[in-house]
């Protein structure tokens, strides 16, 4: 029997607000242990949380970016559990009235992964095990998070990977998080179940906790899929449990079963007041959103005529697309801009991190000037390419490398002169062309180019020659 994978994600994303969710401490990553702390975020007796409104704004932007509905009234709840990294023995989160309801992430195959909701909450600190002792660092405690909870709509590992990448991309676009999985600013809990293909019922799921790379997500899901299918095929049953993934062995193992599942005893946090969100505020935030990657990609294809592949590469990171947009300003051929970026500039921004930061010596305006020279026929592609290399090395503008004599081309009379000359001095080629050898024209154009020292417009020259001998 064939089995279908069914998966839903709970994705935690750390918001890049300057301060924590309930106090004024910095959210900066790293720092000596327990130096980004205050009485509130270490939960000293008597302290009270005060909601950082910026967190609400960031979360709303995230919600709008994935087409979620922004609640008019949201509330904070306490999720009670005891662990040394949780200083109050409860995490302030949202269960009963989350800030964002619904939404979806659209994949390239056209499928929409529906979202159940997005809520805001605080992060916990972390334990450090050293020399046989356990220490606790509360720097991360109180850093704001959003948790994006999807419906079980994911049907393959490729979809899972794309779902995570799309979330990462769109959240980086709206600028609410750097979504660095390796630093823990984006983490996924992956729910996996299997069912016979064609079945509508959901199988028993397991939950793989705290996945911190897309590769591991893929590996863990693959392992878990195989394990569950094998179990069912051999007459067993999947047990609902929470799993951890071991990167070294590539296997999952049980953290706790359903019977041992935490009872979080959620209830409304009496220390915090209701969050009211006016529709004006939502519209204001919507107007602050940048053009989202999916919309940009579609525009590049439909309006600029770029191939889909190019459009995707250019929209993967916000900085690249912004660079492209600026470099395209007023140019006739966006495709040339795209070619320069994907061809030459990408060779200098090899890693994903480089592409994300897109720190290029040549400014988009400088590239724009170069492309305009090309557009106007003042320089040819070869010259443009080699000039761009020099620009990228030095940060200087195109005109620093192209002299007046290199451009300006030649006027029409001069071109006609040159064409005449070419026809007269190459009777063989003319003969060949007349006999149907289309390629022979290239020799004639080549002659024009050579005698104009590269300044003639090859296309124009070809049509002139054809007029003369055709």
């Amino acid at each position: 029997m064939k089995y279908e994978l069914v998966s839903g994600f709970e994705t935690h994303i750390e918001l890049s607000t300057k301060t924590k969710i309930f106090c004024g401490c910095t959210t900066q990553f790293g720092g000596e242990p327990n130096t980004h702390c205050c009485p509130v975020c270490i939960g000293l007796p008597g302290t009270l949380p005060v909601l950082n409104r910026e967190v609400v704004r960031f979360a709303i932007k995230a919600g709008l970016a994935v087409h979620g509905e922004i609640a008019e009234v949201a509330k904070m709840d306490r999720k009670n559990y005891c662990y040394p990294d949780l200083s109050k023995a409860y995490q302030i989160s949202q269960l009963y009235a989350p800030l964002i309801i619904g939404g979806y992430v659209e994949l390239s195959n056209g499928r929409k992964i529906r979202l159940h909701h997005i809520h805001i909450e605080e992060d916990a600190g972390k334990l450090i095990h050293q020399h046989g002792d356990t220490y606790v660092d509360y720097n991360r405690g109180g850093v704001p998070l959003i948790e994006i909870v999807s419906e079980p709509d994911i049907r393959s590992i490729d979809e899972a990977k794309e779902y995570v990448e799309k979330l990462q991309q769109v959240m980086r676009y709206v600028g609410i998080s750097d979504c660095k999985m390796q630093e823990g600013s984006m983490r996924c809990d992956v729910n996996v179940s299997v069912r016979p293909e064609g079945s509508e019922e959901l199988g028993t799921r397991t939950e793989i906790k705290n996945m911190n790379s897309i590769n591991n997500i893929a590996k863990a899901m693959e392992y878990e899929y195989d394990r569950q299918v094998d179990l069912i095929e051999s007459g067993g049953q999947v047990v609902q449990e929470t799993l951890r993934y071991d990167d070294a062995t590539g296997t999952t193992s049980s953290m706790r079963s359903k019977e041992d599942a935490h009872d979080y005893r959620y209830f409304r946090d009496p220390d915090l007041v209701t969050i009211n969100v006016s529709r004006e505020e939502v519209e204001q935030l919507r107007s602050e959103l940048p053009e989202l990657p999916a919309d940009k990609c579609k525009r590049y294809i439909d309006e600029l005529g770029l191939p889909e592949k190019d459009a995707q590469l250019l929209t993967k990171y916000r900085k690249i697309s912004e660079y492209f947009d600026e470099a395209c300003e007023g140019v006739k051929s966006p495709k040339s801009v795209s070619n320069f970026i994907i061809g030459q500039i990408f060779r200098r921004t090899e890693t994903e991190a480089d592409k994300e930061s897109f720190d290029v010596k040549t400014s988009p305006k400088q590239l724009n000037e170069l492309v305009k020279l090309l557009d106007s026929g003042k320089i040819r592609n070869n010259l443009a390419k080699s000039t761009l290399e020099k620009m990228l090395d030095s940060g200087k503008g195109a005109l620093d490398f192209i002299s007046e004599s290199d451009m300006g081309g030649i006027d029409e009379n001069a071109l006609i002169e040159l064409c005449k000359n070419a026809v007269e001095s190459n009777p063989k080629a003319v003969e060949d062309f007349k006999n149907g050898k289309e390629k022979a024209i290239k020799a004639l154009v080549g002659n024009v180019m050579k005698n104009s020292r590269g300044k003639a417009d090859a296309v124009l020259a070809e049509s002139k020659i054809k007029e003369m001998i055709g």
Partner: protein
Amino acid sequence: MGSIAKIHDMLTSKQCSCAELTKSYLEEIEKSNGELNAYVSVTGAEALKTAEAVDKKIAAGEEIGMLEGVPMTLKDNISTKGIETTCCSKILTGYKPIYDASVWELLQAQNAVMLGKTNMDEFAMGSSCETSYFGGAANPFNTDHVAGGSSGGVASAVGGNIAAYGLGSDTGGSIRQPASFCGVVGLKPTYGSVSRYGLIAYASSLDQIGPITKSVEDASIVFDAISKRDKRDSTSVGSKKTTFDSLDNDIKGMKIGIAREYLDGVRDDVKEAVLNAAEVYKSLGAEIVYFDLPILKFALPVYYIIACAEASSNLGRYDGIRYGYKTEHYNGTHDMICRTRSEGFGDEVKRRILLGTYVLSAGYYDAYYKKAQNLRGTIISAFNSALENCDVILAPTVPMTAFEKGHAVSDPVETYLTDICTVPVNIAGLPGVSIPCGFNSNGMPIGMQLIGKSFGEAEILNAAYKYQQAQSDKFIDTKWGVKL
């Protein structure tokens, strides 16, 4: 004249220096605290330092505020930077906060002279002060009787004249009940009028800090000083107006409501004293209106469900890792936390944590917690409509007078019933003030409370002040402490 005004006059007229006054309070504490057990820590050096600063100001001819140099105390659940704050629990022994509660910041800014921290039921859970890790405070009218709770230490200290006033906290009656037992005034302000920042939480949606004083006038002065909006407490709004200026307003035509249910099951001597007070009000020109408030019978179960639920969460943080008591011998983190909590909390606290955990747990949340929340809404609207037909509500503070020591410990559920008249105000978030209204045949004080509209502190203090003025000849002081 209240104690605060008296002291203010003494200081400004240079009858005595603030240091002398402070010393005499400290001496009296030394003499009587062995018996009253009102203080759990005395901060003499700090008190004298503040007193000297006040004296310097007076010597320099500077004006001083009403509360400047007035010796006072704080309940031991109000955080004081560098001064042990234990909630009278073993689990917080040795804990010195690194920050000040907002109310203490406000009072410090006025050069309040804090004599020390006062006794309370452990984590404010109790009605006799006897769940304190340090043993209960005694009643200054008869030390075989309890001071009440949970703010028993403040009430005992103020009643025993070893503090001019103090701040307590009231979750289900913890200011008003001991005030009633000790023959002093206790004001539980409207929820949100006084910042809770720095008050070690018992039940966050019910807790409110308020003054325990010798007179209504004093309560008004202290309340006006601490009812400020605080951005560190999201539930804080502060008070809209001061209460002091309207204390002496004529109460002719004021409608004073009495809910019949408040008098059910109340001991005869208490009932009589309250009804006598109603007569006094009539003679002052107020109108007494009787009405029914049947929803009151749900107040106690609603209170214990909500308070315990919140407490179970609020007290989860005491795990021995960061501060306070930590068990000596353990095997791993989990064992350490279990042992620390088992050894660090007393029985009453454990009982309420268990109860609260139960009512929030999966499968019981709807039956208990959610139902209690719904009923809370109903109680709030019932009070609101009752207060549309009258200006203030008059009720007993406690159905009885201070009981003998040891009684509360023997029957916890019966002790819960003593809160029956005080908890409705906390559930509804309303202000309530308890003032003395007589003595029983054994000479133990009886208290009555005046309940007002939301943020109606001015009205209830006005009504309370007029009563106290009319009855000033009935005032009896205790034998203890500093005589002003």
